[in-house]
């Protein structure tokens, strides 16, 4: 079989590469320029921007299912958190004897719980390659099982949204429990290094940022190739007239399942990139509220465009950083207001607003 070609247009590829190159100046500025320079970015800023980029990737994942396939998942934070926990487990195993209790085999929280052996599901996480596999596999398997059950029984619309939300809530409660073996409500933290490189070092942070930027670029190109393929058109058709697609001979549930699993994998990768940059993963990442926030990012940017989702995630999170520094208790109200304003006045988000503006003044 020849390598299957998916549509990919050159101009977009060049634009993405240019943007990526510009982003890479940020860690380079941190690493090479003196602190006095105007183009020097502090390590704090690099990690903050890196975090925004992982959120952008998460928003991209949601846009694939919501914007293109019409599946309003209110539980996408679950896949992000699973990817994050898989990475967190690897980072925990990297700590080795350097924990507070100095136990070479068990993470601190297990020693604290008086556990004698490592639970079976922690085995293998000392290998980076295994962790990478789990980062993809854990969200993919959950999305597959959930999607298989939901889509085959033709649960759609509000009902589907509600059960995704319930899924998030259930997993949050489960991960809060100490007996689950994921660190309870403290989660996983106090990481020391990744692949032998100290996580507190600037260079490590810079490389993590660069890897994140590259991942976002690749994910964007992959997602774009998917939505511009024939499968992308089928998925769009499902969004607009599901039963028509079925009577054309497509197994709608399989197409939904495919895009849902693909999206969950991207979300898992985003979570895995998030954890080493913020240094912690805990059950609050499963919180239903987190999943709702992703929806708002995508709605603000404009769904069904991919880059709108990226833009929305970065803008809203920048707003959140600024806001929570000044008036932390007001943030949730601000977020709610943004959502209402966007729903009422910018149904296609900022990107849609901008496109209409350009058409009208063309």
């Amino acid at each position: 079989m020849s390598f299957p070609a998916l549509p990919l247009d050159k101009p977009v590829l060049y634009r993405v590469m240019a943007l990526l190159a510009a982003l890479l100046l940020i860690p380079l500025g941190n690493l090479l320029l003196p602190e006095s320079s105007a183009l020097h970015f502090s390590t704090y800023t690099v990690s903050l921007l890196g975090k925004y980029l992982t959120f952008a990737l998460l928003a991209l994942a949601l846009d694939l299912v919501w914007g293109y396939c019409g599946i309003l998942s209110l539980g996408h934070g679950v896949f992000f958190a699973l990817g994050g926990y898989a990475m967190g487990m690897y980072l925990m195993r990297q700590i080795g004897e350097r924990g507070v209790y100095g136990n070479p085999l068990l993470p601190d929280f297990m020693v604290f719980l008086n556990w004698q052996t490592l639970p079976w599901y922690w085995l293998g996480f000392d290998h980076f390659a295994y962790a990478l596999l789990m980062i993809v596999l854990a969200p993919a398997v959950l999305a597959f099982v959930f999607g298989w059950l939901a889509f085959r029984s033709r649960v759609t619309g509000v009902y589907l949204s509600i059960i995704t939300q319930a899924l998030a809530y259930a997993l949050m409660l489960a991960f809060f429990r100490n007996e689950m073996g994921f660190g309870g409500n403290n989660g996983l933290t106090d990481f020391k290094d990744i692949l032998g490189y100290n996580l507190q070092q600037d260079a490590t942070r810079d490389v993590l940022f660069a890897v994140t930027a590259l991942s976002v670029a690749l994910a964007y190109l992959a997602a774009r190739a998917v939505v511009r393929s024939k499968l992308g058109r089928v998925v769009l058709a499902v969004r607009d007239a599901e039963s028509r697609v079925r009577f054309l001979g497509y197994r709608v549930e399989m197409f939904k399942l495919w895009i849902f699993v693909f999206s969950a994998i991207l979300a898992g990768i985003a979570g895995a990139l998030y954890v080493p940059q913020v240094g912690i993963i805990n059950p609050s990442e499963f919180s239903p509220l987190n999943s709702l926030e992703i929806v708002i990012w995508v709605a603000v940017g404009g769904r069904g465009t991919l880059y709108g989702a990226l833009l929305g995630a970065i803008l809203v999170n920048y707003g959140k950083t600024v806001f929570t520094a000044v008036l932390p208790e007001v943030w949730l109200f601000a977020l709610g207001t943004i959502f209402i304003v966007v729903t009422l006045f910018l149904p296609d988000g900022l990107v849609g607003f901008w496109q209409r503006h350009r058409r009208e003044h063309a």
Partner: protein
Amino acid sequence: MTTLLQKPLDSDEPVVGLHPILYMEDVTVSFDGFRALNNLNLYIDEGELRCIIGPNGAGKTTLMDVITGKTRPDRGTVFFGQTTDLLSLDEPAIAHAGICRKFQKPSVFEQLSVFENLELAMHTDKRVWPTLFARLKGTERAAIDAVAETIGLQNCRTLRAGTLSHGQKQWLEIGMLLMQKPRVLLVDEPVAGMTHQETERTAELLQSLAGQHSVIVVEHDMAFVRSIARKVTVLHEGSVLMEGTMDDVQNDPRVIQVYLGA
């Protein structure tokens, strides 16, 4: 076979004696005790153009729902050809077997272009992975263009389907059926809401399709039915009231009572 199938269109006699392609025997569908179809028997021949008429609520749409797998009957058998038991298949499998359907309400993909609508309908491998990697071949492109021509939309191929007129959407949907290489076309109220000219063109289109395909048309518009029908089935309260030519039907006292005379 083709000589037999291509009977002159002005003949009043129904096409008979060919292989039946669709059998429905003793089919009953009830919704909360109400029988939308009641011991219905229907046989459609290969290449036939059959019109089904009947008052509102007679069960015409339900009949199409049963054939295409959307509704499961409580009782009865539905066979396609000699061997295919349609009751054991789901919607995509029935579509794949060659039974294609136009909905009562025009149903095209408004966000996609006319060309893309036809492309999605095209008879090909419709599983997920082959669809992801599908590239249009030259012959497929030509087939799409040919159907666009047949339905008179050759100059609108790049237009978004949402921008088409009501009549054009109806034709596009018929075009989508043709792309599926169907053996049986089920067409639910194709001329509802059409202008006089559009109705005439639709009549021509459907007539040109009979012969190569079996076509079942559900319609209210009597003038339209008269212009295309060779054999008419009258449905009433979920069963067949009578079958015959349009003249037979219009002169039948029972039909006059339940439908035409009303």
